[in-house]
């Protein structure tokens, strides 16, 4: 938990300013300027991200199931369903949502050595 919290702080520190830079410049001015919002950036901020677990020939099926339970709070049945999807199709989207939280899940799952990536949800 401590590492996750540290990561959250790091994430906010490093991604926060760059992502809201347009709005920050408005707040630092007179307050009468028209906000220079970049529509594409706004969409990017709002669009969901997928946490994807990929197949790996070494990780045990029981291990993958247990890690999904531990990190994502899945029931055993739900974790096994995702594990089998990984095993049979090569990948499974285990979570979709805000990027910051998706990054935390990727870090946690990689922390357990599951081959995990982040991708924008289509």
């Amino acid at each position, binding site marked *: 938990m401590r590492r996750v919290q540290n990561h959250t702080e790091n994430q906010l520190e490093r991604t926060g300013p760059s992502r809201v830079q347009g709005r920050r410049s408005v707040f630092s001015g007179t307050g009468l300027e028209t906000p220079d919002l970049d529509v594409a950036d706004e969409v990017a901020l709002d669009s969901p991200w997928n946490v994807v677990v990929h197949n790996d*020939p070494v990780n045990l099926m029981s*291990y993958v199931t247990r890690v999904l339970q531990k990190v994502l709070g899945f029931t055993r049945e739900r974790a096994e369903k995702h594990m089998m999807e990984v095993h049979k199709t090569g990948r499974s989207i285990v979570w979709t949502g805000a990027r910051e939280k998706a990054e935390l899940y990727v*870090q946690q799952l990689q*922390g*357990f050595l599951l081959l995990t990536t*982040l991708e924008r949800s289509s």
Partner: protein
Amino acid sequence: MSRRISLRRKDPQTLTLSGLDAFFADLLREIPMAGTPGALSEDRLFPSPTEGRDREADADWREYVRPELEEQFSESRSRIAADLELMRDTGRKGFELDIPEANRWEWIHGLNQARLALATVHGLGEEELEELIPLQPAAAMAAFQIQFYALLQEWLLTEFQEDAD
């Protein structure tokens, strides 16, 4: 003389692995070193989160997240090494190793590190690990080591799963 390797609960805080001969005791002692990231295994142990699609995100990951993962992985190996220091030779019954309940996930994790690193270094995939195909001696030894570690991992996980259900 053949011995039967077993994992049993010694008390609520301790699991004991027993019946190990010198060969298997040595395989256990190799866990921390086998799992230590090297040039050949680091891409698997610390994979890119976007698979190169987002270079900036991958660079951030290397700078901020990877050091935390390295520390976490190192901690697992250190705890395992400390437990292994206390492995005892009981004579006729072979070597015995206590695994503190508090370190169980460290062991599961450390075994996984070692298995992944060995497989990567020796180029062992599903086919090599599951099929009886001829391998060079070093790769065959690594495959055996991976399977032995898998057995231990499975034992530790099984008891864990029973606790969780």
